[in-house]
């Protein structure tokens, strides 16, 4: 009998969760047609997905127990890397963005070398401090990076021709939305599979008890390095995409505390311990802020994030994801 109970642990998706997932997917696919095509709701949801990816990238570190306040360093390096490569090399943005990601990943390796031994609050503070180094360099290397004036005239994402159909991400918000949707789904699935793999288990053991993990054969140092590289690379890619969306980058824009804090807020709200938590947080919270609160309180709407973090930590310390999962389990059993 004990065996039956233990064997049931292999999770089969319940009908309810499959239905919810499909409904959610269809909703997102048809979102541009449900709202005014290309209108503010479509753009808000595009940016929500974008921030979902940013939060997913951040959450890889968090899954390992490393709560970072410095991911904007990777973001800014990715943005500047891609922008400058486009500016000087006249390369296709779809090529320069991954290169920007690699620049971010390189900084992730430096993190590991410089303060890979730190944990908890000292780690968070060191990560926060590490943002200043690339920011100050870029701010002052005017001959190469244009200093605090920033890089302007960055080309938008280049159009892609599929048969006779032209996907123009720079001009058509609906196409951009679907690009982000595909990217997000891909990242989400990748993330989910990674967490379910042995590597994902290693990451979680490090969060739960590093010494025990090492004593059971988990290579803590290598896993930490891999996590930093993945997280920094993906954050750098987000930074690169951002540069081409905005058309300009400035040090103050891409190396900002806001960009470090937002993924943290979205992940904590959505649930740091579920693979879909960061995305859930992003698609709920970001549109709520941009569409509802911004029109109500044009000046102070960002305060929402502060309230949300405090309320979530007090009421659902594991985030909405964990809370929802419990409800779903109760509803389906």
């Amino acid at each position, binding site marked *: 009998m*004990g*065996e039956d*109970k*233990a*064997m049931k*642990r292999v999770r089969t998706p319940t009908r309810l969760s499959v239905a919810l997932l499909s409904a959610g997917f269809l909703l997102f696919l048809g979102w541009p047609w449900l709202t005014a095509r290309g209108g503010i709701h479509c753009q808000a949801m595009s940016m929500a997905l974008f921030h979902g990816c940013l939060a997913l990238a951040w959450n890889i570190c968090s899954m390992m127990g490393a709560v970072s306040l410095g991911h904007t360093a990777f973001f800014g390096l990715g943005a500047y890397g891609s922008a400058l490569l486009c500016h000087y090399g006249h390369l296709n943005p779809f090529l320069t963005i991954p290169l920007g990601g690699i620049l971010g990943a390189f900084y992730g390796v430096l993190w590991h070398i410089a303060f890979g031994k730190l944990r908890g609050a000292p780690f968070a503070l060191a990560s926060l401090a590490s943002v200043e180094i690339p920011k100050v360099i870029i701010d002052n290397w005017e001959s190469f990076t244009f200093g605090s004036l920033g890089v302007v005239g960055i080309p938008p994402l280049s159009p892609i021709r599929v048969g006779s159909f032209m996907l123009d991400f720079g001009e058509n918000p609906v196409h951009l939305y679907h690009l982000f949707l595909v990217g997000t789904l891909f990242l989400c699935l990748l993330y989910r599979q990674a967490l379910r793999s*042995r590597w994902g*288990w*290693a990451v*979680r*053991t490090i969060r*739960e*008890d590093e*010494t*025990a*993990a*090492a*004593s*059971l*054969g*988990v*290579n*803590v*140092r290598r896993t930490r390095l891999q996590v930093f590289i993945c997280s920094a690379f993906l954050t750098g890619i987000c930074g690169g995409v951002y540069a081409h969306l905005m058309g300009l980058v400035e040090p103050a824009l891409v190396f900002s505390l806001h960009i470090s804090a937002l993924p943290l807020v979205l992940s904590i709200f959505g649930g740091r*311990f579920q693979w879909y938590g960061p995305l859930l947080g992003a698609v709920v919270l970001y549109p709520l802020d941009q569409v509802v609160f911004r029109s109500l309180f044009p000046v102070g709407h960002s305060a929402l994030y502060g309230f949300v973090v405090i309320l979530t930590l007090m009421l659902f310390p594991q985030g909405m994801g964990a809370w929802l999962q419990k409800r779903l389990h109760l509803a389906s059993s």
Partner: protein
Amino acid sequence: MAAEATPPCLELKGISFGFHGRPLLEDITLTVGHQEIVSFIGPNGVGKTTLFNIICGLAAPLKGSVIYRGVDITGREPHTICRMGIARTFQIPRPFPQMTVLENVLVGIWFGAEEAGKPDGERQEALRLLDLVGLRHKAEERGRELTLSELRRLEVARALATKPRLLLLDEVAAGLSPQAIREAVELIKSLRDGGLTLLIIDHFLTLTCQVSDRLVALCERKMTAVGKPAEVLNSPEVMRAYLGRGDA
């Protein structure tokens, strides 16, 4: 075996250790044969757990070396040492609190010494180990929900999951009932018969006297006595340490 002289399971050669310039262990030298059970006794804070940490790579000795099956493993990383076949339990249990008991054991199977087979076999193996320590009925509970004595048993199951050839047990018997201690004695004997070598720390001597081939008494940084349990317990140094006559 074919080899004329198989190296002993574990050799400690002149191990010294200290914190902040204060010596804790000095010149610990010991050879442990295969399938031997050696227990360490001594007062609190004498450095028994530290010695285990040194063997497992969680602490580096100031001097001396740890030789495991003829290979010098001093200063190697803990996960490497684990994969070479040395597992340990922690005196203060260190479960993965959010994972289930079964998952705790699976981690040991996945990352431990040998590459395991198909996923189904891993689960069966984990359940078998939980059976062995009497925790099968708790397989689905989370690590944080167990009582202290259950956590100690989980430590043993998890350590065994890494397929060790040398197992270090740190105070597994503390606080157990007489019945549970009898079961632990049987378990340890059967593990040894299965080919394991065991080092045991047992502060209260409840378990050690019944199973140990040899006893090592640590006192004031040094090994004061080594030998058969009865000899060591009756040696004047140990009597003094345990009964506290040395303080007067």
